[in-house]
């Protein structure tokens, strides 16, 4: 390692432990801390509309879900096309409880951190269960198994009266130290909660990837027989991966239900699962930063296309149908273009940018 931990450029690893550091230099750590502080402080300095805050909250919730999807699909190489169903499991855990004990029960409104953990726990349980076929199935066959879970989930929610047959089940407003979180503060409050969860989960996964289990994930993805021969347990690793992904998805579901103050089936359909997969691909499968880039890119792209559509509709009212078709078209095109030209996703652009900065000012 370089003697000066502030201004080191390039890679100076002299031990495996150096390579495992979360931050290679003090400067990296300082930049991260500054960035994080800025994320927490900026809403206090600028006036942000509820709509924009909702968009940001939505991105953060998606990040929590994609951290999980990236773990199972990106790091462990297990295709999951039922991720929205896992998110739905979290949301409906909370919704079912609200329906049973009342949506303004103290457990729902005051013990919301515990509820979020509970949602994650239920997600993990379902994740582990759905992951069981991974012991026998691979590739497309496994993808079909996860798709089946998505279908079963949708059917269950749509038809069982206990889930209000897919209609929205309301969730009450939560309380914080200052009392009930009002409508005015609702989106700000959940911004801070979701951001904290994203940071904690991000660091947790970063740490996980440095651990034996994290390395097992990658080893099993690259060659499960070789991993088996080296003493790892591929089956257990896969089930763990699904359980962990389910946990993150479950927490995201709980957050979603609290943010939208209810759970309805429209938010957890197959289309949403495909959107999650697109986020993971565009962000960069098998990278931690990809889980942050993907949701931001897809959600902001959606918004920009909506603005474009509105503008086109204003100047060409007769072509409204054509203009509104732009959104699904752009969504599909972006995925295809990324798969063709940048399969490593936006995370790879980030890596390239960082590598330029890392060598600055070419001191060696």
């Amino acid at each position, binding site marked *: 390692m370089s003697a000066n931990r502030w201004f080191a450029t390039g890679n100076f690893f002299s031990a495996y432990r150096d390579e495992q550091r979360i931050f290679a230099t003090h400067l990296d750590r300082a930049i991260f801390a500054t960035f994080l502080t800025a994320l927490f402080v900026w809403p206090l300095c600028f006036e942000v*509309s*509820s*709509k924009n805050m*909702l*968009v940001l909250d*939505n991105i953060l919730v998606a990040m929590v879900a994609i951290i999980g999807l990236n773990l199972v699909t990106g790091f462990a190489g297990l295709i999951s096309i039922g991720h929205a169903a896992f998110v739905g499991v979290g949301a409906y855990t909370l919704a079912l409880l609200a329906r049973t004990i009342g949506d303004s029960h103290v457990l729902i409104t005051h013990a919301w951190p515990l509820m979020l953990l509970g949602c994650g726990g239920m997600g993990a349980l379902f994740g582990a269960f759905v992951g069981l076929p991974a012991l026998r199935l691979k590739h497309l066959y496994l993808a079909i198994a996860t798709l089946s879970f998505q279908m079963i989930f949708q059917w269950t929610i*749509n*038809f069982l009266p206990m889930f*209000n*047959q*897919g*209609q*929205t089940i*309301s969730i009450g407003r939560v309380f914080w130290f200052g009392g009930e979180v009002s*409508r005015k503060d609702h989106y700000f409050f959940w911004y801070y909660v979701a951001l904290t969860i994203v940071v904690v989960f991000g660091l947790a996964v970063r740490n996980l990837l440095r651990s034996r289990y994290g390395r097992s994930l990658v080893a099993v993805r690259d060659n499960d027989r070789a991993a088996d021969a080296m003493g790892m347990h591929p089956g257990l690793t896969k089930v763990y991966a699904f359980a962990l992904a389910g946990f993150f998805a479950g927490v995201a579901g709980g957050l979603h239900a609290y943010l*939208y*103050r*209810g759970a*309805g089936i*429209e*938010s957890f359909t197959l289309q949403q699962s495909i959107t999650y997969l697109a986020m993971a691909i565009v962000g960069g499968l098998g990278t931690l930063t990809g889980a942050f880039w993907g949701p931001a890119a897809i959600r902001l792209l959606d918004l920009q296309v*909506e603005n474009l*559509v*509105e503008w086109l509709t204003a100047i060409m*009212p*007769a072509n*409204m*149908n054509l203009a*509104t*078709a732009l*959104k*699904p078209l752009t969504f599909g095109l972006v995925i295809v273009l990324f798969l063709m030209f940048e399969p490593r996703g936006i995370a790879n652009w980030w890596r390239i940018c960082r590598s330029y900065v890392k060598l600055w000012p070419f001191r060696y």
Partner: protein
Amino acid sequence: MKNQRVWMVPIMIVLGMVMALAPAAQAAEVYKLALSLAITGPTSDAGNPYSKGVEDYIRYVNDTKMLKDAKVECPIRDDQYQTDITKRNFEDFLADGIVLYLNYSTGSTLALKRDFEEEKIPTIPASFHAGNLEESTYIFLPISTYSDQCIGLAEYIVSNHKGDTPKVAMFIHPSAFGRAPVEDVQKAVAAGLKMEIVEVVEHGKDLDNTALLQRLVSKKVRYVLSQTVQSPVATLLKDAQRLGLIATTFGEEGKLTFLGAHYTGGNDLIELAGTAAEGYCWTTSYTLTSEPGDGTTFQLMLAKKYGRDDKTANSHNYTNGMMVAQTAVETIRRVQAKGGKVTRESLYAELNAMNGAKAYSPGNTVGPVTYSPTDHAGVDTLQIYAVKSGVFRSVGKPFTPTFVAKIKK
């Protein structure tokens, strides 16, 4: 220095003109409404003409200065039938200062119900789901609920059926939209409506209904009452035609007579089902362009004025959108006429006062729009239409289902 003075003169003149004109510009008030609906995605076949109905009527109001110097703004956004997007649009509209909100789907109306309550904003959705009105004070339905429509159809069956107790099957959409009226029809039967509900079928995406139709006939079902959208009904009708099961007269023995609520019918159904739609009975509270009148003449003029094609001009969903915009504008006009300030509160109060002598007749409904603090369903009367020679024709006079009041007791 001299040059600077020369430039100052025109600048001062322009500034003076701007200041002189400013109060006049401020005097023209702008009332903001907003609509979020599915222009793409599920149900966009209804959402598309609906949005055009709203858009055209608002343009007409501004073009003809119906509200004198005041203007109405009504941005329309596509939510792709996704509640999350509807919520985002709604928050944006709120920040923009809307005084009345127009929503669309059942799902999003139910999901945003609490927001409407907290914001105290009068809302008129395109969904006629009875559940919208439960624990709600700010939602106003344009016409009778789906439940009322189905009960109306059930009453029509009972009063026109010859023979024993009529056997009926309900063919419904697998969602809250489809399921909600079933319980109310069952309640009406329990309250004395003499018919038997033999089976309730939640349709999937089946392309063949042979087994279903044969089963219904074997159970001696004579009437199929639908509460869904047009395409599954069209598939059902075509299959029935192929099997020779469509009744040629109402309630023909050994055959099936098909009936349906608002979103099952319209010209789209005839287009999809072709000759199989012949004899199909449909109920809605809107007038149709196939039965000309003052309201429909105005509708066709409006569509022509703003360059809409024939399909849109004749769509009952275009009428639906138009009527919702008419109701909103009329409410604003009434507040304005009283010399009041157009706010959420004043519009809410005015909507609640829209009854008795103050009931509103937009011209394109079969009865007046009436609201009161205890009744938030607009047009209470229904009209039965039946397809004759490829167009929907009125059958009998508009009526109010009697069992609706009985089951509410």
